[in-house]
């Protein structure tokens, strides 16, 4: 057991775990059921991507990656804040039934964006 093997095996472990994490988060984003859930998934996606970039920085030896991770963190934070403002402004209307955390059938989910836009037009 020398230093290099320990490091490379733990890097492999970390990469595998983070990939699994990304997969689980994408599953949550696809499943929804509500818009805030998806926004939270996006936030988590950014957090895991930052971790992934840090691991890549170790694996490749390019320390520049750390700056990229920090920049990604900034952008992700701003994106989440903007989405939160958007949720506040938009309100609940298009998905009233989904509030209790129950899964929404897939067909309804795919049409959600369109129907929301239509609702807004109707209100005007």
């Amino acid at each position: 057991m020398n230093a290099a093997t320990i490091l490379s095996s733990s890097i492999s472990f970390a990469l595998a775990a983070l990939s699994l994490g990304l997969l689980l988060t994408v599953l949550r984003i696809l499943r929804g059921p509500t818009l805030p859930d998806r926004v939270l998934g996006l936030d988590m996606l950014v957090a895991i991507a930052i971790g992934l970039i840090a691991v890549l920085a170790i694996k490749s030896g390019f320390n520049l990656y750390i700056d990229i991770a920090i920049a990604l963190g900034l952008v992700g934070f701003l994106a989440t804040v903007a989405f939160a403002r958007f949720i506040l402004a938009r309100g609940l209307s298009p998905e009233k039934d989904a509030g209790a955390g129950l899964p929404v059938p897939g067909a309804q989910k795919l049409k959600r964006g369109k129907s929301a836009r239509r609702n807004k037009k109707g209100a005007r």
Partner: protein
Amino acid sequence: MTGDPDMLTAVAVSALLVIGSLFSVLAALGLLRFPDLYTRMHAASKAGTIGSGLLLLAAGIHAMDIAILLRALAGFAFFVLTAPLSAHLLAKAAHQAGYRLTNLSVTDQLPQPAPKSRPH
């Protein structure tokens, strides 16, 4: 072999890598398993932050350069400062928009704002 500085940093970096990635994957699992938005937020804002923070710290230590380590620490501090802010904003927005808590919930003492008519 022990006491060798190379070995020491390798072990420290490996431990941080393993622990950080475990926290990240558990946060993602929590995102999937918890019943509603508010409980999911617990997983994302705590375990997620710690996970990516530890990984960043591992990268900083591995570089063996004080400037890089300081940069990684600054990034870590930044995540720890912003994660609760975004969680709080999202929770507040969701609650004000009217997304309800899960049926398992025992109490909700935050008054729901009266539904306003949206401006055109």
